[in-house]
């Protein structure tokens, strides 16, 4: 059992206060909203009976799903593909390469550490919003290896029709 939980348990017998303190202490490890957003996504996936595979699971061993299946397990939510400001517009026509996406909105200050991204000095201030229902092949989900988030893989990329907006969203 984590030490911060034991400390909270020792502080009070009130269940709600214990949960609150536990979250407060746990959130100190990274931006509070980002950590909480990941945890809520884990809860959402688990409650829909979806297994989140370990980060060391090879792509070929992940469950292969249709976009409609993934949309259902996400409760109709969208997928996010973060990008650098210099890459805006590059994927307006879609892509037929492998892409990594996540359902979790993450603050730019946390994106690199949560998703274990390269180019660590460059924040990902923009994101494309993708509708999973428009993407035929989606693999996952699995945890981000050496990070903290949850990800899906788009082995055949995504069609232009999957772009919910005709531009990237700036994360502010």
């Amino acid at each position, binding site marked *: 059992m984590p030490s911060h939980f034991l400390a909270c348990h020792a502080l009070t017998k009130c269940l709600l206060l214990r949960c609150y303190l536990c979250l407060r202490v746990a959130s100190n490890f990274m931006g509070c909203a980002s950590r909480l957003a990941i945890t809520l996504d884990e809860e959402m996936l688990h409650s829909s009976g979806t297994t989140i595979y370990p980060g060391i699971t090879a792509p070929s061993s992940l469950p292969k799903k249709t976009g409609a299946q993934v949309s259902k397990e996400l409760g109709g939510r969208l997928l996010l593909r973060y990008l650098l400001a210099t890459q805006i517009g590059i994927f307006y026509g879609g892509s037929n390469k*492998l892409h990594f996406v996540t359902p979790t909105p993450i603050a730019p200050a946390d994106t690199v550490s949560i998703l274990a991204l390269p*180019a660590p000095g460059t924040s990902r201030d923009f994101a494309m919003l993708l509708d999973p229902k428009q993407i035929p092949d989606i693999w996952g989900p699995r945890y981000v290896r*050496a990070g903290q988030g949850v990800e899906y893989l788009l082995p055949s990329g995504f069609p232009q029709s999957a772009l919910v907006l005709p531009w990237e969203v700036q994360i502010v």
Partner: protein
Amino acid sequence: MAYTPMEEEPDFSNLQACAATWLTPQGYELFSGFGNRHGSWEATFSRQHGNITEFISLDLTSLSAPPVGRPLSYNVEVWIDAEQADKFCRRMVGQLSVTDDHLNAQDFLQKLSALLNTAASVGNNLTSADLDGTYSRGFMRP
């Protein structure tokens, strides 16, 4: 299903084949071929080293906007990460810069080979004590 991307997408197949040639003798196998991870093109190789699973990743990130009439430049990074149960570590081994018309040039490939060899050496010396990160998953319920 094939789509028609607006921009011509890069082909790093030769780079991936070269990396496989250099890392296979060290016990690494291709884990994931080149894909785009939130702005960077990445290929990953993995091996089991005792109780530790190790990964070497080769990443190319274009940090400037697509140029007109000039080659696109990439920042090339080599990373190693490892994990055992809920412990992990992740380290950058080194960086290079290259333009896309130079990706198959011998001088670049030699430098990249040296960087990947360094990564494999780092992997050889990794122990459980080096895994300084801990995964935190889900709520801690009382």
